[in-house]
């Protein structure tokens, strides 16, 4: 529906620099997630776009027109709050109708019916927000935001107050509705699983900046910065030194072990462009599910099992090695013979390692 372009957004609250420089575009019908730890500026970005706060610098355009000076009521954006912010003195129908009523072109009554249908809450018209469960409140908040046919939907951690099961089913419902309406959507969350499963693209944020913006798969498998590598997924981290680079392979010495990595897989775009030379200090990341307990020729270390944690189909195995503690996620079938104190070999494929220059 709409094209959002955000350029050079900056915002400080007193001495705190909430946003340093935020730029991205959101294509028509696209679902973009802002992912990051608390305090990274993701909510501030959303609030600036909604018009609740004024940026110190930067530009926000929607459909080619700047909206940065418009008050929130003129922006025609739907906003779903973390706390839902349903009007406690109005019933469900009035809450949903509130925005539609202000937009004269919409037939309010029909719209309320349509939206209650959309969020599966027909028959709840007369209930007050206090009489709804938190999952129902969340859906009404979504319906209310959609009622005036917004040009853009903004969601601020909409599922964070719900329990895990409910979160998962509402997540699917939000995605379904968004695709059905082909609505451009910006979604703020600190939950990586939510971001990975929902978004067309993810912007990973840290300290008021975007670290990487890419598809979920790229963010997960090819993180471009050390922060993204450690924030998305669960990885084991080692400090080492580059000893050789040749034939598309890189050798890294960690403690007394020598690991080899495939250059094409293991380096970020920036690092591949520059020259990695022997003697460089690096951080090596290996995702927990890429560690294997079957012995391979390359990259093998002997380890002692410290603890096996049953997680259903997979299990987490905590290992003690000469280069520190490791965490491996393996198929539970493989752990039947293991017990605390067992001696095992742990290894990873040369394509599983990710390298970043140590700062």
């Amino acid at each position: 529906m709409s094209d959002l372009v955000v350029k050079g957004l900056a915002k400080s609250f007193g001495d705190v620099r909430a946003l340093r420089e935020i730029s991205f575009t959101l294509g028509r019908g696209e679902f973009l997630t802002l992912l990051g730890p608390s305090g990274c500026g993701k909510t501030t970005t959303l609030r600036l776009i909604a018009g609740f706060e004024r940026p110190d610098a930067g530009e926000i355009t929607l459909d080619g027109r700047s909206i940065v000076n418009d008050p929130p009521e003129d922006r025609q954006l739907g906003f779903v709050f973390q706390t839902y912010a349903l009007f406690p003195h109005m019933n469900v129908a009035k809450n949903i109708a509130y925005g539609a009523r202000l937009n004269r072109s919409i037939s309010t009554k029909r719209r309320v019916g349509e939206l209650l249908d959309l969020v599966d809450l027909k028959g709840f018209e007369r209930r007050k927000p206090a009489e709804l469960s938190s999952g129902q409140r969340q859906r009404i908040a979504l319906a209310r935001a959609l009622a005036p046919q917004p040009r853009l939907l903004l969601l601020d951690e909409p599922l964070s107050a719900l329990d895990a099961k409910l979160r998962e089913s509402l997540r699917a419902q939000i995605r379904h509705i968004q695709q059905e309406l082909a609505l451009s959507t910006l979604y703020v969350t600190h939950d990586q699983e939510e971001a990975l499963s929902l978004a067309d693209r993810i912007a990973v944020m840290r300290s008021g900046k975007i670290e990487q913006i890419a598809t979920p798969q790229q963010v997960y498998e090819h993180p471009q910065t050390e922060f993204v590598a450690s924030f998305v997924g669960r990885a084991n981290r080692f400090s080492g030194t580059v000893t050789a680079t040749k034939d598309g392979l890189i050798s890294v010495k960690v403690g007394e072990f020598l690991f080899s990595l495939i250059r094409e897989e293991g380096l970020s775009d920036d690092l591949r462009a520059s020259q990695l030379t022997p003697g460089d200090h690096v951080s090596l990341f290996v995702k927990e599910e890429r560690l294997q307990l079957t012995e391979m020729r390359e990259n093998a270390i002997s380890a002692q099992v410290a603890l096996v944690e049953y997680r259903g189909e997979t299990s987490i195995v905590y290992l003690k090695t000469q280069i520190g503690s490791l965490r491996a996620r393996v198929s539970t079938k493989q752990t039947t013979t293991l017990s605390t104190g067992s001696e095992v070999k742990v290894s990873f494929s040369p394509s599983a390692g990710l390298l970043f220059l140590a700062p």
Partner: protein
Amino acid sequence: MKKGGFLVFIGLLAFLGLVFYQPLFSVLRRGLTEGGRWSLSPLATILTDSYFVHIIVFSLKQAAFSTLLSLGIGLPGAYLLTRYSFPGKSAIRSLTVVPFVLPAVVVALGFILFFGESGWLNQWLMSVFHLPSPPLHILYSLTGIVLAHAFYNAPIVMRLVNASWEGIDPEIDEAAASLGAGGLRRFVGITIPLLTPALLSSAALVFIFSFLSFPIVLALGGARYATIEVGIYTLIRTLLDYKLGSALILVETALSLSLTYVYLKAEGGFATLTQGSRRVATYPLFSRKASMCKMVIAAYIIIAAVFFLGPISSVLVDSLLVRGQWSVESYRQIFSLGYNPFLGVSPLRTVLNSLFIGGISTAISLPVGILIAMFAVRSHLPGRRLLEAILMAPLAVSSVAIGFAVLYGLGGAPLHLSGTLIAIALAHAILTYPFVVRVIRPVLEGLDQSLVEAARSLGASPTRAFFEVILPLIGPGILVAAVFGFALSIGEMSATIMLMRPGLGTMPIAVYSLLSARQFGAASAMGMILVVVAGIAFVVIDRLGKRGVGCRTLW
């Protein structure tokens, strides 16, 4: 803060400067000048003259005794409310607000009728024990003053301590028990330290209220038992000595400001209390099993019931009893347009005056209080806390002093408010707006800021969002504040008496004049009207108060 809001706020400060700060400062300055020059001699007179030293010491002494007695009566009540369940418990908890809206002069009247030499209690004791003369001599003594102050303040102690006690997470006590601490050890080592902020702040509050109390001391103390408040009143209204009166106000204000500082310090301790998910377990008070403990509790309840209900019932009975016969004659007198020699005006006139003053003062205190509450909640200005404390200053200045400040600062040119009902209404507005702030502020704090943002993202302008979202949500709070402010104004006597002129009498002044003239029937009938106003205020505060307007916030 937005520009428009800032301008409104500057306007508010200018208004308060004109009607409160400037007049108060000119009074304080008057207490520091002699023959038009700065001088410490008025202050020196106050601090060396044996009469003034006596009343200062007496003020502090009676306040200390009042505080002790209020704690003595209030703490067992707080314990009962916290640890026992019984029918009417929530009603009793609600009723603890009543003394706060009950005019002091009516309480004084009730005490005279109930505890007086020929009061109901003495008559009853004489007839039961066949005594030749009244056994109790309570009135016109320190005891009478202290008892009346306890009547007022014990419920406050009960309420504050009970609220704090119920706020203690029972798991803390259970944790101590699981670690091996016995009942007494837990009470001394866990409960009492956790209750200390509530104990200190309620004690400080009672001390301040008793220290600044005026109508009770005036009516029950007699000539010998004057406090600073009565001293100021006598100096200014009887002796017309503005200089020494102002100097005495200076001393009193210095003392009350220090006491308020102590109170605010103690009140700050509340914030650290943990609110548990579970409530303290309660035991049914009325069960078959009798015990020594139950006997003590029963005795407490009977004494408390007599102490609190006796004076108020006496006012009701006396208003309906004329020369030993049931009659509404006293009420007919009150609603007559005829001139009453004791009042210097018709009784109905005083009722109308009170309503007019109450209306005007509420019309001023409500917007002022709302604006200050909004400032306190929204502003991020540096020095906001200090400014907030300054804005709440009328809480720490005595009513008599505020009455005189309005008289002295605004009575003459250019406003010439002297001898007008407006002057009285203005003084009431100054006295009551801090209470409006205390009611409105938590309401605003409880308002989710994202509701306004939600309305605006849905297309509502700021004005629309205010009328459609904010106002319906804070409406009940505003109504409570208005009713509360109105009730306080209707019952106010201290500032009023400083600004009184013939023809300007209000209902509390009429009660005082009638009881001074020993016209107890008419005084009681007039007193009952005040009781009814207080009762209506109580019902409104209690009903609407359930929706987020905590009575805890009233003081």
